[in-house]
């Protein structure tokens, strides 16, 4: 039974692995660099629930210098996020979040978000990132 389960699990993983990672998303890798992974924590200053991508912004304070910078994060489109359990109210102004993702190639403080953790509840949500998709526009 256990062998059967493992094989099925492996098959399941194999099916999931069908997405060919080498065929990078057209505008993802034109805009973001998967080799520059960042993780940032801060307080939400703006949420733009829009197409083609939802964007949100947080203020991040450097613990050593005390300096605050504003960072912007791209997620998937509203309807892709809703499939993952988001609503427009999930993240509110002032909420503390921790985000990881790939930084923008142009060096700006913009990141393609992979996951968002709502610090108050500890809930982790996928950002419906366009990384790995064939097309999202």
């Amino acid at each position, binding site marked *: 039974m*256990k*062998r059967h389960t*493992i*094989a099925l*699990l*492996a*098959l399941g*993983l*194999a*099916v*999931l*692995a*069908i*997405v*060919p990672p*080498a*065929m*990078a998303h*057209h*505008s993802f*890798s*034109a*805009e*973001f660099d998967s080799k520059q992974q960042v993780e940032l924590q801060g307080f939400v200053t703006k949420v*733009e629930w*829009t*197409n*083609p*991508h939802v*964007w949100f912004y947080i203020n991040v304070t450097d613990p050593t210098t005390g300096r605050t910078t504003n960072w912007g994060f*791209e997620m*998937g489109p509203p*309807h*892709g996020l809703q*499939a*993952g359990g988001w609503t427009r109210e999930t993240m509110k102004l002032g909420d503390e979040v921790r985000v990881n993702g790939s930084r*923008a*190639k*142009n060096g*700006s403080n*913009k990141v393609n978000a992979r996951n968002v953790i709502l610090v108050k509840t500890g809930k982790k949500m*996928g950002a*419906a990132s366009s990384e*790995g*998709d*064939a*097309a*999202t*526009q």
Partner: protein
Amino acid sequence: MRNRTVANAFAVLTAFVLTLGLVAIGFGQAAAPAAPAAPAAGGGRAQRGGAAPAAQAAPAAQNGATAPALPAAPADAAAPAAGGGRGGGRGGGRGGAAAAPSAPTPRRPDGKPILGSMPGTATGRWNGGPTTLPPRNLDEVPWQPWARMVYDQRQIDQFEPHTRCKASGAARQFSTPYGTELLEVPDLQRIYIMDEGGPHSYRIIYMDGRPHPKDLVPTNYGHSIGSWDGDTLVVDTVGYNEKFWMDTRGTPHTSQLHFIERFTRTDFNTLQYQATIDDPGAYTKPWTTPVFSMRWGANQDLFEYVCQDNNHGPELMLGSQESVDRSILFVP
């Protein structure tokens, strides 16, 4: 104990081999209905995150209070792929094995296939258009040398016009995660192909037997005329400009492009699509793409999508560069 370890190892090895095999197939473009590669070729969203958008809206019940006054097409219920959605979306072994055969191609009283939503029923869209037009072996394409160089460069740069909200003709309009709606208007003798995503614009296919005009002003969608070849709609388009990419990968074209598409609704849920590229400016002879399959997404209204709403693409897109000069001498 040892037996179990060996058994486990065997299972993992089997899975690994299977994975390799499936990933290898996954790189292919053609999506014969049985092929597990369908999600990759389809250009839909990665299956990792959940069902393709086509699937999630499929059950009419999801609309709740918004249930349209028009009933769901009776044939929708017959196809488990439509009802569950996920099986069809993955196109992998799982869904394929479980799905009952789909309902047959719907037809008008005169026998012609209905390519869009059946009259008197809720509307739907075609999802999972081709990501890239050439076959898996790029050497099969009769590139002119400059065209192959441009194609290779575009894989690195990825400065696709569609991402900058430009209307994109040929096959590109079929390649968003939101699908397209084929709207047949018999009274006007034309078919509209409505973008859902991207520029949220539309393309006209004239079905009244007219020829292409002589003095065409080149446009992003060209001038399309359609006719029936049995159950296949053949669409002939000329008059393209060069301000877009034909597919998401940037297979090149010039304004000499003569694009011939064949649409065949092989069953209720499947629209087969194949194109011939006749472009003496970019290729040494005409060539034909593999056959792609788009999937019917039932009970999907066209919704508002405005690419310019909040698109950071133009400012973020660098492709393979370190910086891009975005200055233009004039603002529109």
